[in-house]
């Protein structure tokens, strides 16, 4: 079920009504049932079957790990969990890719044609983190299956994150879910804000981006530039909109989810960018991959190797395609260069990533943004060769006079929307927006809701597109 669909607008009041009326265990059962309805909409058995399989597996493995002090047994149960989870993910997401790769190497392997269940990467990582936390004794295994199942299936963040940790979400779900009036008002404001970002800005930009990247060979270099800038803003607006809606929905129900974005395009270096973009994934990769591999504790070479390995897997997490691998490696290269710069120029001193922005940061912000822009060419292109063709047009060929194959109105609107998104980015960074959305005045909050609805109704894009991160 899509957040920006009429079905969801009928579904949500039903869920909230049940949430307001029920208490205790019936409330948890209700929320669990509604989460399965949400996820299984259109594919009830198929999607929910996989979700339940993953839940049962980790519920059992975590209980078994928790029940023994034998390190070998604990490790064995963890491996069962990892094999099961990653096996499912591998089967649905990577089997086709591996088979095609094998065929290219001369083997004759049948390419499986399995439909990718929406959000499988998100909930798989969430359940894995739970089992690992239990293994590390950072968490006790959950005894109540309903709590555990609700932790995995909690509908606001099930399909596209944030990838929550059991330490944060599980105990909130297990306790009373009683929102304050501030939670309800702020939660709905956040939902409206997310819908506005998605239905107006992301979807309009998406129309231009799709036009450009459907047949880039026929586009001028200026079109390609517009499409690539457009995609940078589209993917941010689209994905952060989903996170806004998820955080808002959860807050309406008295649950606090983690923030997933903190003005990433105003980062001063790639390392900071990666701490502001898709935070739930970057911290997951840090805690469950980078740090266990040794992080930066085992010398420069090992640090660089770890960075590349983590970013390679980060790329593969997005999808089984060479373009995503290159996307990850490009960011890995950026992170490595930044580490080298820090070691040689800054002499290893740590930067305060939270310090306020200054005009002197502008150059590094632009460098960081444009480094990411190159990565988006890989991310958005249909193939590696297409990505290199586009980059060749940017860097090796004359651009010619300014001309667009995209109609003028689309060009103007795209530039305008990107400027607004950039301004909103800055407003976020200053904290002004947080003060607005946390207004306690119902009258002002209501006016803000009304204004957001007016903007959506007046400006929504003609084609409502699926959230980009649903495919991951």
């Amino acid at each position: 079920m899509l957040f920006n669909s009429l079905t969801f607008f009928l579904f949500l009041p039903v869920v909230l009504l049940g949430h307001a009326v029920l208490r205790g265990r019936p409330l948890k059962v209700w929320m669990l049932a509604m989460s399965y309805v949400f996820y299984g909409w259109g594919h009830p058995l198929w999607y929910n079957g996989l979700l339940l399989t993953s839940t049962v597996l980790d519920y059992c493995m975590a209980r078994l790990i928790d029940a023994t002090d034998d390190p070998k047994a604990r490790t064995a149960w963890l491996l069962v969990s990892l094999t099961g989870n990653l096996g499912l993910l591998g089967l649905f997401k990577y089997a086709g890719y591996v088979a095609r790769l094998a065929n290219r190497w001369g083997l004759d392997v049948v390419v499986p044609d399995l439909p990718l269940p929406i959000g499988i990467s998100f909930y798989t990582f969430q359940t894995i983190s739970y089992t690992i936390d239990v293994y590390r004794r950072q968490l006790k295994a959950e005894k109540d299956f309903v709590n555990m199942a609700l932790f995995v299936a909690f509908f606001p963040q099930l399909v596209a994150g944030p990838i929550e940790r059991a330490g944060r979400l599980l105990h909130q779900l297990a306790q009373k879910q009683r929102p304050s009036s501030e939670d309800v008002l702020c939660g709905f404001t956040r939902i409206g804000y997310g819908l506005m970002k998605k239905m107006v800005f992301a979807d309009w930009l998406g129309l231009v981006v799709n036009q450009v990247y459907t047949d880039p060979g026929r586009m001028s270099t200026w079109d390609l530039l517009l499409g690539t800038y457009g995609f940078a803003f589209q993917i941010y607006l689209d994905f952060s909109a989903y996170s806004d809606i998820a955080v808002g929905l959860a807050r309406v129900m008295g649950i606090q989810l983690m923030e997933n974005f903190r003005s990433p395009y105003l980062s001063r270096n790639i390392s900071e960018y990666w701490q502001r973009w898709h935070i739930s994934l970057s911290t997951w990769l840090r805690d469950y991959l980078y740090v266990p591999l040794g992080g930066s504790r085992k010398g420069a070479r090992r640090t660089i190797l770890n960075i590349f390995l983590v970013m390679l897997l980060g790329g593969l997490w997005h999808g089984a395609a060479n373009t995503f691998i290159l996307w990850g490696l490009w960011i890995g290269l950026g992170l490595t260069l930044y580490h080298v710069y820090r070691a040689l120029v800054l002499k290893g001193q740590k930067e305060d990533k939270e310090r306020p922005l200054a005009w002197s940061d502008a150059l590094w912000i632009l460098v960081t943004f444009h480094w990411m822009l190159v990565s988006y060419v890989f991310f958005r292109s249909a193939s590696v060769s297409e990505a290199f063709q586009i980059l060749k047009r940017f860097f090796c060929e004359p651009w010619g006079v300014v001309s667009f194959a995209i109609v003028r109105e689309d060009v103007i609107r795209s530039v305008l929307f990107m400027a607004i998104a950039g301004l909103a980015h800055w407003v976020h960074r200053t904290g002004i927006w947080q003060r607005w959305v946390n207004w306690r005045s119902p009258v002002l909050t209501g006016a803000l809701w009304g204004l957001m609805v007016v903007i959506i109704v007046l400006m929504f894009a003609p084609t409502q597109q699926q959230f980009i991160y649903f495919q991951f």
Partner: protein
Amino acid sequence: MIAKQLATTCLSALLVLALAESAAGVIVKHLQLPHSYAEGRNAKSNRGWRAYTAPRGRPANNRLVILITNSQGFAPEITDSSFTYPARLKALFERRDPNHSYIVANWAMNGGSAVEMVVMAARAAAHHPDAVYLLSYSENFVGWRIHQPLSYGASNVDYLAYLPDVRQYLSPWFLDYFEVNRFHGQLAVHSRLLRLHDLWMVKIQPIRWGFVEEGPKYELALWEPMGDRMLQEFYDTLRRGLPRTPLFIVNMPLNRLRFTAESGERLSEFSRMAQEVLGSEPGVTVLDAVDVIPPEHFHTWTHLNRAGHAEFAQWLFERSRQWMESDGRLAGGPS
């Protein structure tokens, strides 16, 4: 406490919405929308027919002819709408019949499909014209476009289908099959805000027109049974509102040189099928104009140049004489 605060917030939001709705109403009212009869062609290349205006009361000496057609009438390559065949047809009508003033409404839609043409037929019924012309060729009545919901191609025709005075003529099958029951569509008819959105959205969605002087020969899509169904649907829709008004179905001129040899044998398929499906219906005249314009008077494989428009207007006028001479009415029809 929560309920009270939520109620206050919602009231405040509703107040803002009501204010915005009122403001949008004022803006829409003062927008200079083209009248359904006024524009000689779709000059700004907008996708769809923009005129929503309700039928006007016409003076007694006024005659209204509605042409429902594709981009061949939309004529993006003609710089002045007075040179299009509808404009020339009006001049020919008025020269032949100086006692009447003629309105030839050029309801041309670039990339128009049969689905959209059926809605325009319903719109035509609401205007009570003296004659209706369906000018098309087989491409508009076959292929993927006639299997999509009406809303698939962003156009104002989608909006028209929700207007009560148009919708009353559309069949339940049509409304169901082409998904003309969307929540947004229903709401757009009643909300000035959504109306403003639709006007703005369509206005800023022009089609970039690329002229193809040379290139590979065009392959005409094969006729399919759904084309028969759409022809029948067009006729039935029109007849629900206009039981006796003359309907001319014209297979538009095509540039034979620009089609493949195999397609060349099927250029008249539209008129042939129209004759088969609707030829025996009262008040229907099927005409084939495929070869009436020489290839040098085409811009592309379908679009006429200025000379082509003049020739086609003359050809159409000569075939409309009978209708004109019968005072625009079939025997026994409404006065």
